Structure formats: C-alpha cells, structure tokens
C-alpha cells in the first residue's frame, strides 16, 4: 500500500479541515484566515493534480470508505471526467481565493470575512466531493452543501437586490433538491441500492414492472439537476443571482457551481442509467433528445438575452446560460466527439467565464462601473484587465486558437457525427451571437473614449488582475496544447458510448 493510496478522499477532506479551522483561526487573527484558505486550496490542488497519472480512460480509481466494499459502504470513484472536474475546481479555487483577498476586504466587514472564507472552503469541499463520489445519496449530501453555501454567498453583501436574488435562488434550488431526493427514493425502491455502478447493473436487468418507476426517477433527476444547471426553461434564477453577487462569487458560481448540475445530468444519464438500461433504449434516447433540445434553446436564448443587456455582469451571466447549453448539448449528442467537446467546454468556459467576471470585478473595484457604456476607453487606463477580457472573449466566442474553439469544434463534429444538422446550425449561430455581445464590450474598451496620451494607467491591485490574466492565458494555453487533455477525454467518451 503506497503513500498516495488515500489521495482520493483527502481531496475532499483537506478543504473540509481548513473550513473547520477558519472560524477558530479567525478568533485569533482575522488577517490569517485568507492565508489559511489559500494554503488549503493549494494543498487540495496539489492532491488533485497528483492523481492525473493514476486515472486512465476505462481504468477508474475506486476507493472504499471505511473499508466497506461498494454496495454496502460508500465508494469514491474517479473516472476521467471526474478527474477533469476535480482539477478544474481545485485550480480555480486558488485563484478565486487570491482574488477575494483584496476584493472582499472592501465589500465585507472584517468580522464576517472569516465566515466568507469558511463558506468558500465548504463550497470547494462540496463540489470536489460531488464530482468524485460513486454513490447517489452521497451526491445529494454534497449537492446540498454547495447549494446552501451558494445561497449564502450570493447574499453575503446584504445588498437589497442580492437578498432578493438569493431568496429566489433558494426557493428554486431547494425545490430542485427535493426533486432529486424524490428521484433517489424512486430509484432506491426498485433497485435497493445507492451505489451508482450497482444500480446501473441492477437497472440493466430490471423487472419490467418497475420500469415505469425507474423512468419517473430519471425524469425527476433530470428536472432537479437542470434547475441547478440553469437550463433554458428553469434558468430564471441565474441572471440575477450571478450578476448581483460579489465578483469572485459570481465567477465561482458561473464557472463551477452550475457545472455541477451538468455533471449531475451526465452522471445520471450515462453512469447510472446508461444507454441500454432494461432494454428501454427508445425511452432513454427520446429523453436525451428532450434534454438536447432544452440545451439548444438555452444556447440561443442565453445569447440573445446577453446581447440585449446593458449591464456588464448581467450580460456575462446570460452568456453562462448559453455556454451551459453547449456543454449539455455536447453530452446529449450520443457521439463521443460531442461528449469530449462538452467536457472540454467545461474547462474552457470555467476559465473564460471566471476571467470575465474577475475583470468585471476589477472594473467595479477601481471605477465602480457596471454598465457597458461606461467602459469607454478603459482599455487604455486598465490595460491588463482589459487585455485579459479580450483574450478570454476569444474563448467565449470560440475563435481559434483558444480552448473554446476546440470545445465548439468537437461539439460541432459531434452534431455532424450523429446527423443532427439543426443542432450544428444552433452551435454556429450561438457563436455568432457570442461574437456580437463579446465584441461590443471589446469595442467599448479599446476603440472609444479618450486618446492614449490623455490617460493614466490605473490598474486594480495585482492580486486581482493576476488571477484574471492567468485564466485568460489558460484559455490560450489549452487551445494550443489541446493534445494534453483531449485524447483521454475522447477515449473515455468512446468507452462510455460502447457500454
């Protein structure tokens, strides 16, 4: 038994440990808490990245908690997709904590700051646990942790509209959680198990009496997770909550938390149910089709609303709906290129959108500007932030050589592969619309306003623009070196399709 045998669980446990320590350290010295959180995320990230060589497509890493073998105990199961999520979450975590250091100092009174960092560590714990667990009820527990913490994080400033947005988010989020719990109940009553692989084996030869119940469970799961992912008809909570929250929280919610809903849909559709569950391929496929249509509508509606916005953060929030649509569409195309592209977009969108929100936070911090029209000429006075925005917008639009391009290219390929030409059109149209709303901002930043020599450089603190710039450079890096991740995603998706 080698030393790294316990790494899978340590990914979840280490941030939880730091979360529990934060309030106690906050009693002693408040200024230490941010360093503690930074250290905690760094440790987590190290643990997550150390797993990279150990998970290969088709060769999952399984870990039995408490030494109880799977159907009886809880299993942690890391596959390629889970590993991607874990790496994205933990790496982004460091940058967001770093960004919060200066930004939240101004937004929150000192005595509440330590609880802000505690909430951040808890939400990381929950998302990491959610991504790697192999047990549906455990998934529910972690889902609740990130749900509760995200309601609080939206409203943490106590601003009037933030409170209202958080309450709306809470009502919809809690209802969706109940849907998921009901679905777990349905599924448990006909399979008698909570372990994902065990359920999927039981479902494969389910007695025909129970197929109706299993299908109802599937529908409830998808409804519940769609609300968390903000797919089109149930996206109404997202724009307000994401735009009014403080910027690092917006970045966190947009880049990571809504991805959890998508990941839930993916886990349920592919890991738990699987294409051939109980010879119900037709039903499963048609449900898949429905989700794909919802995703396609999200792409168009999100992008169209984004164009209409005057508020920068609101525009970015609507753009998130559009990108969530891309990811879900890619996953539901039933073509391995699509799935790989969808997950590549998880990476690309996490970096691009986090960078967008962080830059918007820089503008807000330095100038107090929210409206797009106010951004005139900021490209000259805040060159690094604006440059990061421009670079990230390449990825959000999907232009080469950015990561967004690779993702959209693969999704498009998936559409053509499964002969869904209408969806291919939607993907292209979504990109065109994205170009409209992104380039509008870039235009205001760089091509309007006062002349170069009239402006002084007034950049936000380095702790704020460095994370934004790093994320933008990340989109470029993973666009150029897509060979680092894409092949393993491709082969993992291919295995998924064969099963």
């Amino acid at each position, binding site marked *: 038994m080698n030393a790294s045998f316990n790494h899978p669980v340590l990914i979840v446990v280490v941030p*939880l440990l730091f979360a529990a320590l934060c309030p106690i350290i906050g009693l002693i010295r408040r200024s230490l808490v941010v360093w503690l959180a930074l250290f905690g995320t760094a440790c987590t990230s190290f643990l997550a990245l150390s797993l990279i060589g150990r998970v290969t497509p088709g060769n999952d890493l399984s870990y039995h908690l408490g030494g*109880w073998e799977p*159907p009886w105990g809880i299993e942690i199961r890391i596959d390629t997709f889970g590993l991607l999520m874990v790496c994205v979450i933990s790496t982004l975590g460091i940058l967001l904590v770093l960004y919060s250091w200066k930004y939240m100092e101004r937004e929150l009174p000192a005595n509440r700051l330590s609880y802000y960092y505690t909430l951040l560590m808890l939400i990381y714990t929950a998302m990491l646990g959610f991504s790697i667990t192999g047990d549906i009820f455990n998934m529910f527990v972690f889902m609740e942790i990130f749900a509760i913490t995200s309601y609080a994080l939206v409203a943490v400033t106590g601003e009037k509209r933030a409170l209202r947005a958080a309450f709306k988010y809470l009502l919809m989020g809690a209802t969706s959680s109940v849907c998921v719990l009901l679905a777990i109940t349905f599924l448990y009553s006909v399979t008698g198990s909570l372990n994902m692989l065990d359920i999927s084996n039981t479902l494969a030869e389910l007695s025909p009496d*129970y197929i*109706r119940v299993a299908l109802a469970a599937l529908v409830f799961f998808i409804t519940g997770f769609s609300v968390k992912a903000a797919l089109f008809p149930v996206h109404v909570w997202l724009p307000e909550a994401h735009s009014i929250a403080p910027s690092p929280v917006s970045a966190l919610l947009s880049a990571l938390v809504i991805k959890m809903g998508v990941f839930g849909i993916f886990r349920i559709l592919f890991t738990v149910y699987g294409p051939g569950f109980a010879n119900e391929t037709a039903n499963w496929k048609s449900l898949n089709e429905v989700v794909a249509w919802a995703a396609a509508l999200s792409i168009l509606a999100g992008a169209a609303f984004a164009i209409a916005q005057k508020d920068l953060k609101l525009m970015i929030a609507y753009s998130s709906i559009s990108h969530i649509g891309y990811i879900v569409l890619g996953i539901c195309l039933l073509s391995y290129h699509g799935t790989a592209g969808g997950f590549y977009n998880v990476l690309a969108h996490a970096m691009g959108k986090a960078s967008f929100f962080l830059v918007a936070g820089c503008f807000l911090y330095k100038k107090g500007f929210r409206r797009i029209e106010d951004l005139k000429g900021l490209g000259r006075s805040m060159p690094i932030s604006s440059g990061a925005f421009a670079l990230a917008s390449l990825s959000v639009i999907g232009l080469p050589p950015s990561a967004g391009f690779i993702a959209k290219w693969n999704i498009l390929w998936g559409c053509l592969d499964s002969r869904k030409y209408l969806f291919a059109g939607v993907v292209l149209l979504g990109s065109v619309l994205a170009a409209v709303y992104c380039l509008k901002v870039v235009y205001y930043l760089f091509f309007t306003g006062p002349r170069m020599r009239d402006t002084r450089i007034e950049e936000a603190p380095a702790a704020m623009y460095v994370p934004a710039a790093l994320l933008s450079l990340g989109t470029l890096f993973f666009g150029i070196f897509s060979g680092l991740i894409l092949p393993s995603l491709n082969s993992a998706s291919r295995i998924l399709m064969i099963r």
Partner: protein
Amino acid sequence: MKKLFVILALAALGVVLLWVVGKMPEMGDSRTPDKTHVVPRYIEDGVKEAGAENLITDVILNYRGYDTMGEVAVIFSALCAVIALLDREKRGVSRSAVDASQVRSSRIVRVTVRILFPVIFLFAVYLILHGENSAGGGFQGGAVIGASIIVFTLVFTLIESTRDIPLTLRVILESLSVLTFLAVGFIGVFKGVEFLTYILPGLSPGVAGALRSQVFMMSIEIAIGVAVGAIFTSIVFAMIKEENFELEPHIPEP
C-alpha cells in the same frame, strides 16, 4: 386565472405520479428489491461488524459514515451561512425583542423553566449516549440541547445566555464535530487503511472489532451532540439579536 392554471398543472402532475406510484413495490412487503439487495447484510451482521445494537446507528456512523460527515458539514455550512448573513451577537450590546419588552416573563414561567432546564438537558445527554443501543443519537440529542438553551434564552434574557455560553467557546464547539470526524478518519489514514476505518492505535488486534467501533462511534456521537447544540444556539442567537432596539420600548395599547 393563474391559480386555476397552477391547480390544473399540479393535478396533471398528481395523476402522473399516481400512475407511477401504482407500479411501485407494495408497501410492507419484505420481498421488495430494497429489502433483499443490500440490507440483509446489515441486519444479519450489522451488530457484529459495525458494533452498535441500533442498526440505524450502524448505518449512519459506520457503513455510511462518510455521508454523516457530509451531513455534519451541511449543518456547519448552515451555521456559517447564517452568521455570514446576520452576523453574531455582540456581547453586552445585543438583546432580543423579548428582552426589550417591558413585560417580564412571569415568575411561574421562570421557576418552571429553571426546574425543567436541567431535566431537559439530562434527557439530551441520555439521547446522545444511548444512541448506540436505542432510539437517539448525536443529532437528536444536539437538537434537544439547542431547544433547552433556546427556552432558557427566551425566558431569561439573551444577555444572560451569552454570558453563560460565551461566543469564544461556541466557535470552538461548532467546529468540534467536523474536527472529530476528521480526527477519527485520519487515525485510519495514518495506520495505512481507508479513511473512517475504525482502528485504535495501541490496542491489540485481539480486542473485538465491535469495541473499537463503539469507542469511535461514541466519541463521534458526543462531538456531534455538543456541536449541534452549539450550532443551534448560535443560529438562534444570531436570529433573535437586535442591536438597534429602541431604548424606550413601545408599550402596546391596553
């Protein structure tokens, strides 16, 4: 109009759900999938393997202990959420609306609560400690502790309660459950087995596995009980405190 629409939609949903429920396994049948697949091992070997006579405690703290760690994290995050939204009470300054009212609680109420408070507290301790062998457990006992302190606070003042249970102590107690869980888990990790495997350092392997498990489960139960009590107390204190109450309380019309 909207009302009618919603009622119709809900009725449709109800019919669909009823249609689904009609196909569910029969209630009370002991041959349904959920009672034949995973559970038999718990019922047959649970006491032997996991160590507690109460099978639910076995499931919660041993077979699915990781879930309970998540659960503890849920309630801890609820506390952090409430504190982040409402802030903690400040010592000596915060009072509740009840404290500010001119009508004091009557002597009968005060004496009753004073007599009942230790009894309620004792019952909570019983619930926590006896959760292994009968109904009860850390969460239930913790909730009762919280309730007893809330009753105390409502009758005697918030100032009185915060003096008796100072903030600094509560901050440490609140983290206690998470930290105990992690400590127990890490003992396993350092001994080279899986997280949350109950292994006691320094005890020979000859000692029955059930005893080892019981020591750990008991310590986790106690930590959960204390922490949940502290968390509920803190949540309620944060909710009822009023910092800017009027010094001249409003006297209601007779």
